[in-house]
């Protein structure tokens, strides 16, 4: 069974098939054991992601862990907070500041 890490910096991978708890998923040569069932196309953690730290996919933060996430855990809306607004405001401010300094 396979899961896909899109970017080398990612701490989650996407399951390429429906997964049952206990399934071993190969992620670019490394095995990760799924903690719970999850549908195809959903994400599992490749390492521990402590509460309050970022979930990384496509090499960028996509949200914040709303509880402690452990290796092999199913990662979705139940344990990730969508902080898009905050992230985008921070990025926009930083970009505009950089542009103004040029």
């Amino acid at each position, binding site marked *: 069974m396979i899961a896909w890490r899109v970017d080398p910096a990612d701490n989650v991978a996407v399951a390429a098939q429906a997964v049952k708890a206990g399934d071993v998923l190969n992620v670019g040569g490394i095995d990760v054991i799924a903690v719970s069932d999850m549908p*195809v*196309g*959903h994400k599992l953690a490749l390492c521990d992601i402590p509460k309050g730290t970022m979930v990384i996919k*496509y090499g*960028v933060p996509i949200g914040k862990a709303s509880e402690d996430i452990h290796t092999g855990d199913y990662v*979705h809306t139940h344990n990730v907070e969508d*902080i898009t607004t905050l992230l*985008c405001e921070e990025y926009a401010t930083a*970009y505009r500041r950089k542009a103004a300094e040029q």
Partner: protein
Amino acid sequence: MRTEFLGYERSDGEVGIRNYILVISMVHCANSVAQQIAWATGAHVIVHDGGCVEFADQHERTYLSLLSAAKNPNVYASLLVGLGCEQTDHVKLIREIEESGRKAEYVGIQEQHGAKETVAAGVEMVKKLQTEAAKMERKSFPVSRLVLGVQCGGSDWTTALSGNSTIGAMTDLLVSQGGSVIISEVGGFPGSEHVLANRAVNTKVGLQIMQMCDELRDDYVKVHGQTIEEVNPTPGNKAGGITTLVEKSMGNVKKIGVESPIQGLIYAGEHVPHPGVWILDLRAPGVDGNATTGFSMSGAVIDVFSTGRGSPLGNAVMPTLKLTGNPASYEEMKSLFDFNAGVVLEGASLEETGKALLEKVISVASGEETKSEINGNFEYLIPRESRH
């Protein structure tokens, strides 16, 4: 890797990959007459719900959309089919089409004293144009002359992972050889504006991207009373595994690859000023046909369309090259798909698959029919920011 394709040179210097004849309705009253002329001749028809009793801004968009279709480099000639008393000024339209070097003729229902009579006259005119068009020969051009649209729709969990990523690999390769790629679907940009701004060729363009995303966010609140984050990702997106808006948006912008700088923003009907990656800032609702038509209005000659679940969408003035990132969808719907990017999920490298996609683009550019053409899918949806 081929670096040239066989295309048609137009007198204004643009290069097309098809030699289509269009039958364009001037007003909705002439739609079925235009359709009958097209069906009898195999020409492509453009019908719509405008052309009369339109407010100035709405009519301006109707006019621009019809003019842009006729001026696309894939078009040899257009037959304009009017009623006779409509708002659309066919004399001005013919003049502006001819300025681009493309041909245009007109047939009017009131002038011809009836619908059947107009169909008969129109069919003869199209046949004559087809005979002329058949005399044109393809010539060799470098791939730097290609302008593509990149798009996704009918998405599933593979769309971002293998479908859009393969388009991105193709984009990087084509642009490195001097070609042009247009992305739109800008409603999907908020959430990845920082990534896009950092890809901009300079900070001026980066700030324009930021500004566009700010406006899109503000419009959401003004028009719907809700933030974009409140409605996105949708319940369907979440069921498919998308957790946050950043994640959804990043999957969308994978289509422009990772390397090529964004040269700037263009608007409805504008062609790319110079090669590279461009954003078509078209804020019409996110139905797929709006972006496809927007690309063809900006002079794109092929639309490369990633669809996980499968969509037949085509366009009257350019072939749509359909690919899926889902190997199962590819097997189930071979009659819809031109390319299987699902091989990426089965171990093929993204780089090689992107290269194979560019090869397919070059074959299509040189004359190979896409499934959209074989299946007769030739939509043309006038993109409107608002229907009110």
